[in-house]
């Protein structure tokens, strides 16, 4: 029996692989398991290969896992296309279609653990069509994993309810055939999940984009302007269904510039507003982000990161847009950059993004990534009343008497009016301006305004709640990680500590501006460590160095997108560091001669 299992499956476009994954996940969640699922597709819109990578466990899950415990290949060609995304090893049970022969085109797996199941044949015999292959697999897995057959079957029934009774009956038979096969050919017992208790209230099943969109509504978003782009479009789709009910509007603009332009307009008009895009769209929005910064217009700009540069790898996750998030537009400017680490975290961080935008009258960049955005998670219910919702600081009556929109206040935050408010009219502009909004070319005013616009963000850096720290307070080894990869670092930290290694992990949600204090405190005890992220350049590692004197032993563990960073990779490097310490300690203990 096991508490934690990773399953991967791949097949051709029409094979319903993703549907099978979702069915498994739903059934698991209902029975009280936690689960996380990532999907991956070929470049085709239709008919291309697809796969899922699903982790099911009795306890909390921080990442979708890496090495598969069970690999299901509906056919080898499609399975192999996923390469490192569906990694198999000596401990993987490989399930494949016996029709393709017994040979395994994989290295390092144990043939003894392979199961050549006649999947296509069972589908044909039971349901009369190979389309039922995925249902056969559900039956197989129900049997092997010990997942509730009732629950899975209920899912199958729901899915085919709208089809003909024959199709439904065929799939029921297919499921039964799979189940029977599994019972006849049991796997190693450690492929069977330990039982769990169903949760007190139903858990939630949601992906990062849906969560981001829903959280925006909770935060008070009234306007969304955007342009479709993978892997962010679902945010617009969700809002396009929901926002109207709450008096808001979604505008599909003619391009990303117009999208953020409309958002700037709506926010200028006093509404909380958001746009969402991915890398290429972010590049196009740069100029408008600069405008929002100098005109002090609040807005949230979501970047669901994918592989770059340029069109790059549109369907793969990467964390390589951090440099851009911090530094894209010309001129001296600081725009807060936030990043959630999971689907659940996306809820809080999206709301924070709105709060920070409104409080500080600034564009905020919310850096999600394809992994978080597209992966489904089983999470505990979130109580929206736990969040404070921040609104902008309107001018009071006294301030409206001689209204100065860009008044240099102690906090740097000025009272902000909106069209319709009597006495509050002013000129917003991208040109440097004085306190009342009049254009100026004065170097003195420019310096003051630059200072004000950057100073107003200072309180952000003191927000310790935008960082989480795990592990041993005074550990000599410290990890830093962010975004979807943080879950890997988190698991690695837990494993290493169980091995007796003293270490800790810092996970910033606020990526920029850099909070010198938080990092300095964290690094105080650290002699060696890693900044772990999914990019070629190790961008957070570099940005931290800009502002913080990091420990000499701090290194970067970074890798281009679509090349998974695993718990194992992290542990490897950590263990090397521990060994290096031990070596260093020896000479230190030698008596000093001379």
């Amino acid at each position: 029996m096991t508490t934690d299992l990773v399953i991967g499956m791949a097949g051709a476009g029409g094979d319903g692989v993703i549907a099978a994954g979702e069915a498994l996940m739903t059934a698991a969640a209902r029975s009280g398991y936690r689960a996380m699922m990532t999907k991956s597709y070929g470049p085709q819109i239709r008919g291309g290969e697809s796969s899922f990578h699903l982790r099911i466990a009795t306890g909390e899950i921080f990442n979708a896992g890496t090495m598969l415990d069970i690999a299901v290949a509906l056919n080898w060609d499609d399975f192999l296309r996923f390469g490192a995304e569906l990694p198999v090893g000596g401990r993987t049970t490989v399930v494949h279609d016996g029709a393709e022969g017994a040979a395994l085109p994989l290295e390092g797996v144990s043939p003894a653990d392979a199961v050549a199941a006649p999947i296509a044949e069972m589908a044909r015999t039971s349901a009369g069509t190979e389309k039922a292959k995925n249902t056969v697999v559900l039956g197989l897995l129900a049997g092997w994993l010990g997942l509730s057959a009732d629950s899975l079957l209920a899912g199958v029934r729901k899915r085919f309810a709208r089809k003909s009774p024959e199709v439904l009956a065929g799939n029921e038979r297919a499921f039964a055939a799979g189940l029977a096969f599994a019972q006849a050919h049991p796997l190693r017992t450690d492929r069977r999940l330990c039982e769990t208790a169903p949760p007190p209230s139903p858990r939630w099943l949601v992906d990062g984009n849906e969560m981001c969109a829903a959280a925006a509504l909770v935060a008070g978003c009234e306007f969304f302007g955007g342009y479709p782009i993978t892997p962010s479009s679902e945010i617009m789709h969700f809002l396009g269904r929901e926002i109207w009910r709450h008096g808001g509007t979604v505008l599909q603009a003619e391009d990303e510039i117009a999208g953020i332009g409309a958002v700037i307009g709506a926010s200028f008009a006093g509404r909380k507003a958001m746009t969402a895009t991915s890398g290429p769209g972010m590049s196009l929005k740069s100029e408008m982000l600069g405008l929002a910064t100098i005109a002090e217009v609040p807005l949230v700009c979501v970047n669901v990161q994918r592989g770059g540069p340029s069109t790059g790898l549109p369907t793969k996750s990467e964390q390589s847009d951090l440099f851009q998030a911090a530094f894209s537009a010309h001129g001296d400017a600081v725009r807060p950059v936030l990043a959630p680490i999971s689907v659940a975290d996306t809820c809080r961080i999206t709301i924070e993004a709105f709060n920070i935008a409104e409080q500080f009258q600034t564009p905020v960049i919310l850096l999600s990534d394809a992994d978080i955005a597209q992966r489904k998670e089983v999470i505990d219910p979130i109580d929206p009343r736990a969040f404070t919702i921040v609104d902008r600081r309107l001018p009071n009556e006294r301030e409206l008497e001689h209204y100065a929109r860009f008044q240099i206040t102690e906090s740097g935050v000025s009272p902000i009016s909106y069209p319709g408010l009597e006495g509050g009219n002013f000129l917003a502009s991208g040109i440097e301006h004085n306190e009342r909004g009049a254009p100026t070319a004065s170097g003195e005013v420019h310096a003051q305004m630059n200072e004000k616009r950057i100073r107003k963000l200072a309180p952000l850096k003191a927000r310790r709640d935008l960082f989480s720290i795990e592990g041993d307070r005074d550990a000599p080894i410290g990890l830093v990680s962010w975004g979807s990869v943080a879950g890997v670092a988190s698991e690695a930290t837990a494993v290493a500590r169980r091995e007796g290694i003293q270490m800790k992990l810092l996970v910033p949600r606020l990526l920029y501006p850099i909070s010198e204090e938080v990092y300095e405190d964290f690094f105080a005890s650290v002699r060696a460590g890693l900044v772990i992220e999914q990019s070629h350049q190790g961008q957070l590692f570099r940005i931290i160095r800009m502002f913080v004197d990091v420990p000499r032993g701090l290194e970067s563990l970074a890798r281009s997108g679509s090349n998974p960073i695993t718990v194992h990779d992290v542990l490897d490097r950590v263990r090397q560091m521990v060994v290096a310490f031990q070596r260093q300690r020896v000479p230190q203990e030698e008596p000093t001669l001379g």
Partner: protein
Amino acid sequence: MAYTPQDYKSELKPIWCPGCGDYGVVQAIYRALATIGRPPHEIAFVSGIGCSSRIPGYTTAYGFNSVHGRALPIAQGIKIARPELLVLVAGGDGDGFSIGGGHVAHAIRRNVDLTYIVMDNQVYGLTKGQLSPTSPRGFRTVSSPEGSLEDPVNPLMYVLGYGGRFVAQGTPADLSGLTQLVVEGLRYPGFAFINVQSPCVTYGSPDAQLKAHKSSMKNLASLGHDEGNRLRAMELAAEYGRSLYTGIFYRDPEPPPAYEALVAERRRALTDPGASRERVLEKFALR
């Protein structure tokens, strides 16, 4: 309460060159706003960048002197967010038909209720005299010392081609005519476009100055033009650059509901009185 043109004149002193056509345009706007009579704080006035785009700064209203070419998207956001506002958009020929040219068609097909005034001087004023998209073929400028090699944009024709429902042209050489056009544009319930031949005295060509306008302009109404005839409007618009027609080329006599009206309707249809933002998340519960 009645408003006077003076009520819309802001405290900023224009820094346009003496004699610039834009002085006349801003006057026409002050007068038109006084005629309409909306209080300044219920007006949003958006522009891009250019000499002409300084105009919101000279007007008492909620102004937005944004970035080059992006006035229309910003203005649409404002109007959709607060349909109760009067939203004016203005800028130059370069701002509107060169860098901003990609936005015009979409503002028109969306039919957001904006009034868009282009101060068309056939040159780039603010950057000191380069070719603009409406510069005539062969026009010599600092950026085209041997003369331009391309045909000009025809703003009137483009807007008509986009399905524009209110298309007019004016010149500060006929200030009361121009004022009236702005009034009509502001009253039109949908996207209204007014091309203003607003001379650049510093870099503009001599035959595009107010004096020349006075002798060449031909009023469409007095020519007996039928505002409701789109095809005829196109034929007249085709003469852009050769004939200076003033007045309304086309006004759709049966304006459909503007975009923001459709938005409001959709909201009404979909608003679920029980829908609370707090409960949005509950959608995700496994049932």
